[in-house]
């Protein structure tokens, strides 16, 4: 295993990202914009729910960060599928890089993007009124397990889907639907009962449960352990799917 080769692949991914920085803009700017738009409305909902002295940003910042970070698995999918479109996939496979070096090299920059996204959205969120009442270490723990979950979901995405269209549909429609079901678009309390029952099946629910406990309820680090643990379990499940289904020799169809 050569770290240098993985770094070379990561650097190449960054070069490609620099040519088309739209994913970066999308996951950084849009959640901040949506938070800005929604925070007063969300603040009113929180008041009705019995939260006093909190800002709408206390819910909207983590909610939008969670919603938009789940677009990253699709970006991971795109980064693999475009190799097929450019016919560079076989060149990469025939190079000295091993399968794990290729996976790490390509997934790592997207995980770093996830960390940057959470960091930037939360930092800007402070300016919009976000106040973490509980453990900041807990927030970091939930954030770290969330990034792990997102990265491995990206691996499962490239393992399961065959076409760029499928990745695109899952990445756009799927992530918004799961965000809604997981209580990242609106507080679960205002959603119908059937949503409450299926919400725990989504990683978004556990991320929001962790952030809400730590930010809104002011809980200590202990409150982060279960959500972080479940997110890590999701990550393990996605990794198993990837190990089971991912074949480097599979043909994938890009847009081309």
């Amino acid at each position, binding site marked *: 295993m050569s770290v240098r080769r993985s770094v070379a692949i990561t650097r190449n991914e960054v070069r490609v990202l620099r040519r088309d920085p739209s994913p970066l803009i999308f996951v950084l700017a849009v959640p901040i914009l949506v938070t800005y738009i929604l925070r007063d409305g969300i603040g009113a909902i929180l008041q009705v729910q019995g939260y006093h002295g909190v800002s709408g940003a206390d819910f909207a910042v983590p909610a939008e960060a969670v919603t938009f970070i789940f677009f990253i698995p699709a970006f991971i999918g795109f980064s693999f599928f475009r190799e097929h479109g450019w016919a560079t996939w*076989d060149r990469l496979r*025939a*190079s*000295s890089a091993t399968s794990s070096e290729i996976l790490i090299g390509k997934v790592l920059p997207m995980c770093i993007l996830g960390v940057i996204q959470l960091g930037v959205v939360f930092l800007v969120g402070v300016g919009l009124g976000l106040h973490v009442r509980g453990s900041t270490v807990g927030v970091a723990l939930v954030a770290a397990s969330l990034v792990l979950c997102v990265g491995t979901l990206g691996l499962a995405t490239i393992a399961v889907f065959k076409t760029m269209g499928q990745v695109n549909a899952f990445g756009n429609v799927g992530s918004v639907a799961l965000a809604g079901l997981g209580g990242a678009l609106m507080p679960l309390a205002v959603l119908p009962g059937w949503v409450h029952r299926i919400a725990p099946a989504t990683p978004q629910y556990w991320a929001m449960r962790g952030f809400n406990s730590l930010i809104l309820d002011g809980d200590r680090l202990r409150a982060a352990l279960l959500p972080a643990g479940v997110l890590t379990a999701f990550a393990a499940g996605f990794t198993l799917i990837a190990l089971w289904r991912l074949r480097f020799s599979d043909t994938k169809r890009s847009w081309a």
Partner: protein
Amino acid sequence: MSFDHVGQAGEPILAVSGLEKSYGDKIALNGIDVEARPGQVVALLGPNGAGKTTFASIVAGLVKPDAGTVLVGGVDALRHPHSVRPLIGLAPQTTGVYEVLTVRENLTFFGELAGIRGATLRQRIDDVSASLLLEDLSSRPCQQLSGGEKRRVHMAVALMGRPRLLLLDEPTVGADILTRTALLEVVTQLAGEGTAVVYSTHYLPEIESLNAFVVLLDHGNVIAQGPVQELVARHGLAALELRFDGPVPDLSLEGLSITRQGELIRIVTPDLALAAARVFEVLGGDAQRLRSLDVIHPSLESVFLALTGRRYDPDEEDQRVGPS
């Protein structure tokens, strides 16, 4: 040490034995043996579907064979693919470059993957760019290049690791004359420096110009192999082909080998002029129905004809199940 293209120097860098591969019920390779030595250009020649791409893909570790052995630099490439990859440079049939990156960024990336860094990498990029006429294009994104220019970048990528075994799968497909000339010159130069080149193509004239060791493939079988001149001398008879409107006339020419296929008569002969004169002598009124007269000189094309009974048609198999 200098090498001729037919090449005899040293132990084989590539030794393939009993290679078999099928896609469903279509046999792509049917137990073929091929060797390539330092400085040798081994030309895999055959129409589409002959098994050339499958062969290159197996040697490069992209496709697993059903049976057979592949040794690269004496190492079992099927068991230890990562050990042999530093020895191999591959330019697949389809042009593969990062479209949004510049020529230099493409070369940098594949150079880094080959383990080259710093000043050595910069020098290698300069050398490879110079040999493939890419110097003035280095800062241009590949998506702004012409097909031929992109093809040269594609080839340059394969050279970045300075491989001992270069696999070129149809390198001149879609290439303009400038690109084709540059590619053939680079292949000649690399062979002269000791690189073993496996060059798959369905263009016969390229092989003749490279003076390569030819492996003639047909439907996954090696039907002949040897240096171009030797194959032509051994199998490459001259022939006349006459095509008629309607049924072929019943020509009887003593001492000439005549075959009939539908509207076609083929006369294999060492003396084309004499045979033509005799044919026109006996054609009589049938001469008015003569639609075409083709002269086939001794060449790789006539070798293929002699060994398969078919005229060489590079595109004869377009319906493929897997890589060909």
